[in-house]
C-alpha cells in the first residue's frame, strides 16, 4: 500500500488517503497526468483497469472521472480520480485503452452515456445505447428524458432504418470471402445479444458483439428511487443471482449512512447469497451443456434448482425476485423451520451429486469436445480485467469473499479454488467445484445460525434489521461483492441530505467477458461460437444493465 502512495506522491495530486483495507484513493490535480500515472501503476503490478465511472456534477460544472485499478496478485487496489470540463466540446480525456486492454468497452460506455471523448481510443463507437441516443449523453443530469420519449415512434423508426441498412449491406456481402452472419438475438442459445460474425466459409475472421438488447438504464433508474426502493432495480441486474447483487448495493449505502448491521444479518446474508449462487451455477452448468446440444443436464439442474427456490419461496414469498436484502440488514426475519426446507434441498443435491459428476462432468466425449477450446491465459485475465469463474479457471487466485471479506465471510472456512488451463472444460469444472464449495458454505452458515438461535445469541425474528435513515449525508462509497459470475463493483455517490442516490455505477463481470469473444474466437470455426459463449457464463442482464 505504502508503495502505491509513494508512486502517486511523485505526481501532482490534490488528495490521497487509504480507503478500506485494500484501496488507495487519490485525486489528481490535472487530467493531463492520467496516462503517466496509469503507466506508473501498471509497471508496479496494478495491471487491471476494472472500470471507468464518470460522475456528472451539474452544479460544479465538471465531470469527475473515476478509474479503478486492481492488482490481482497482491490485492492492492487504487481508485484514481480527476476532473474534466463538462461542456460537450471540451469534455475530453486521454484514453487508457492502448495500455489497458480491459478499458476498451468501459471507455466506450462512458462515451455513450456521458459524452466523454477519449483521445487516442482505437474504436470509439457508441455501445449499449440505441441509435436515438447517439451523441446525446443520456446519463447526464440535464438530459430531458420526457422530451426524448415524446417522439417515441420517430426513435423506433431510427432503429428500424439502421437495421434495414445493415441488412442491405449484409446482403451485398453474401457469398463473398468476408460474409456477415448474425448470431442472435433469436438464436435459442444466445438470449438477447447479437454477435456480428464476419466469416469466410466456416472460419471466423472477427466478431463484433452487438449488445444493448436488454438495456433498461438501471443505473439511471436507481436515481429516481429512494434508497430502499432501489433494491428492486438493483436486483434486476440479473435474476439468476439477485441476492448477491443487492448485498453489494446495500453495503455501499450502509457505508455512507454509517450503519452497522447485526451479526445475525451478516450470517443470513452469507446463507442467502450462497443459495443464490447455487441456483445460478446450476443454470450455468445446464446452459453449458445446452450449447453442446445435450438438454438432459439442464433438466437435472433445473430439478435441483427448484428445491433451493422452494427455500426462497418460503422465506420471501417469491421464487426469484426475492428483494430479501435491504440497506440495514434483511427484509424479513427467519423462522427456524424454514431451514428444514433448505435441508431438503441440500439432501437433494447430495443425492444427485455423484450421478451428475460420474455421467456428465467427467464425461470423456464432453472433455474431447471442450478441451483446448476458448483458452484464456493468466496474462489475458490481468490485461482484460476478467474475474470470477472465468479468471479462476485460468489459475488466477481472486475471490472477493477472501480478498476483502464482507458480511460474515471472514468467519467461514474456505479457500481459493482454481483450475489450470483456462479452457472451456476448465470453466465447467470450475463451476462444478464452486457449486460444491457453496454447498459447504451453506452448511457452515446453517449450522452457525442453528447454534446461535439455540444459545440465544441470535433472535431470528428481531435481529435481522437495524434502522436505516431516510436521508443520507453527502458521501461516496465503493463496495465489491463476489457475484456468481465474478466481482461486481458498486460506486455510489450521494449529495447532501439525499433521499435518493445521485449516481450508481455498476461494474458487471459479463461486460469484460463479452469483450473477450473476438479475441477467443477469431480464427476458430463457427461451431465453436455457442460453446465458447456458453462457457464464458454470460448473462445479458448484467451485460447491458
Amino acid at each position, binding site marked *: 500500500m505504502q508503495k502505491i502512495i509513494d508512486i502517486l506522491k511523485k505526481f501532482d495530486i490534490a488528495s490521497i488517503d487509504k480507503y478500506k483495507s485494500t484501496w488507495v484513493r487519490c485525486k489528481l490535480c490535472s487530467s493531463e497526468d492520467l496516462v503517466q500515472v496509469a503507466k506508473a501503476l501498471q509497471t508496479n503490478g496494478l495491471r487491471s483497469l476494472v472500470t471507468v465511472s464518470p460522475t456528472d456534477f451539474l452544479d460544479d460544472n465538471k465531470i469527475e472521472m473515476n478509474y479503478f485499478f486492481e492488482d490481482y496478485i497482491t490485492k492492492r487496489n487504487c481508485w484514481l480520480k480527476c476532473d474534466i470540463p463538462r461542456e460537450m466540446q471540451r469534455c475530453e480525456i486521454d484514453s487508457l485503452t492502448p495500455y489497458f486492454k480491459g478499458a476498451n468497452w468501459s471507455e466506450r460506455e462512458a462515451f455513450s452515456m456521458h459524452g466523454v471523448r477519449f483521445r487516442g481510443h482505437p474504436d470509439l463507437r457508441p455501445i449499449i445505447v440505441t441509435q436515438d441516443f447517439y451523441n446525446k449523453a443520456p446519463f447526464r443530469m440535464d438530459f430531458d428524458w420526457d422530451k426524448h420519449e415524446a417522439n417515441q415512434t420517430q426513435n423506433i423508426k431510427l432503429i428500424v432504418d439502421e437495421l434495414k441498412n445493415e441488412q442491405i449491406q449484409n446482403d451485398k456481402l453474401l457469398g463473398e470471402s468476408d460474409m456477415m452472419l448474425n448470431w442472435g438475438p433469436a438464436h435459442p442459445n444466445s438470449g438477447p445479444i447479437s454477435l456480428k460474425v464476419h466469416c469466410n466459409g466456416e472460419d471466423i475472421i472477427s466478431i463484433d458483439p452487438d449488445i444493448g438488447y436488454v438495456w433498461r438504464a438501471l443505473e439511471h433508474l436507481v436515481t429516481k428511487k429512494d434508497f430502499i426502493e432501489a433494491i428492486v432495480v438493483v436486483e434486476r441486474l440479473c435474476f439468476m443471482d439477485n441476492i448477491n447483487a443487492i448485498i453489494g448495493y446495500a453495503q455501499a449505502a450502509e457505508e455512507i449512512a454509517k450503519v452497522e448491521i447485526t451479526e445475525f444479518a451478516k450470517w443470513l446474508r452469507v446463507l442467502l447469497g450462497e443459495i443464490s449462487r447455487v441456483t445460478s451455477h446450476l*443454470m450455468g452448468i445446464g446452459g453449458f451443456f445446452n450449447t453442446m446440444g445435450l438438454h438432459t443436464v439442464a433438466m437435472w439442474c*433445473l430439478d435441483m434448482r427448484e428445491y433451493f427456490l422452494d427455500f426462497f419461496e418460503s422465506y420471501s414469498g417469491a421464487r426469484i425476485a426475492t428483494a430479501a436484502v435491504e440497506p440495514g440488514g434483511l427484509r424479513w426475519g427467519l423462522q427456524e423451520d424454514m431451514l428444514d426446507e433448505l435441508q431438503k434441498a441440500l439432501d437433494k443435491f447430495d443425492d444427485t451429486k455423484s450421478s451428475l459428476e460420474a455421467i456428465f462432468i467427467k464425461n470423456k466425449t464432453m472433455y474431447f469436445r471442450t478441451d483446448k477450446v476458448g483458452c484464456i491465459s493468466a496474462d489475458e485475465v490481468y490485461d482484460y480485467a476478467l474475474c470470477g469463474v472465468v479468471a479462476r479457471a485460468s489459475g488466477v487466485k481472486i475471490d472477493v469473499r477472501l480478498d476483502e471479506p464482507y458480511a460474515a465471510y471472514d468467519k467461514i472456512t474456505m479457500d481459493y479454488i482454481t483450475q489450470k488451463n483456462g479452457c472451456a472444460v476448465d470453466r465447467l469444472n470450475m463451476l462444478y467445484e464452486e457449486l460444491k464449495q457453496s454447498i459447504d458454505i451453506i452448511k457452515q452458515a446453517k449450522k452457525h445460525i442453528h447454534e446461535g438461535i439455540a444459545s440465544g445469541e441470535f433472535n431470528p425474528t428481531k435481529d435481522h434489521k437495524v434502522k436505516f435513515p431516510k436521508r443520507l449525508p453527502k458521501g461516496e462509497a465503493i463496495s465489491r461483492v463476489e457475484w456468481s459470475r465474478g466481482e461486481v463493483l458498486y460506486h455510489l455517490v450521494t449529495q447532501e441530505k439525499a433521499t435518493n442516490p445521485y449516481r450508481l455505477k455498476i461494474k458487471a463481470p459479463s461486460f469484460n467477458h463479452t469483450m473477450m469473444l473476438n479475441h477467443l474466437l477469431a480464427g476458430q470455426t463457427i461451431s465453436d461460437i455457442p460453446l465458447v459463449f456458453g462457457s464464458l457464463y454470460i448473462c445479458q442482464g448484467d451485460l447491458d444493465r
Partner: protein
Amino acid sequence: MLKILDFFQYAKGESLWMAHFCSGCCSLEMAAAMGPRYDWERYGYLPTASPRQADIIVITGLISKKILPALLRTYSQMAEPKYVLAIGACAYDGGPYNDSVAVIKNATEILPADAFVAGCPPKPEAIIEGLEQIKDKIKHGVPSLASQSGLYKEMDF
C-alpha cells in the same frame, strides 16, 4: 364435416409449439416451466428454434427498443394461425422499468396478446395457465387479437 374441423382445432390446440425468443428476465421462469417439476411438455408445449414451425410467440417480460424489430420480424415469419402470449408486468406497462426510457411500455399495444400472465416474474404454474387459455381459444376457433389489430401493422419493420 363439422366434426372433422373440430378435430383439427383440437389437434392444433393440443400441440402448441412456441418460437424460442427471449427478451427479458421472465424467460428464466419459462425455463423453469420447461423443467422436470412443471414439465409443460405434458400439455403439448414445446419450444422450437425456428419461427416457421411455431404456433405461439411469447413476449417474455420487457421489450427494449432495440429488440422490438427482432420480435416483430420473428412474429411475421411465423405461419398462420399464430397467437401471442404476454407474460410479466413489463409486457403490460413496463413494470418495474416504467420510469426507464429505454424500455417499450406498450408492448401489448404494438403486438396485442391473446392472454396475459401477471407477475414479476410470474410463476411457472401461471405461465402454463396462460398457455391453457390460448389453447381454449384455439379449440373454440377464436381468431387471434394480433390478426385483427395492433400498432405493428403500421410499423414498417
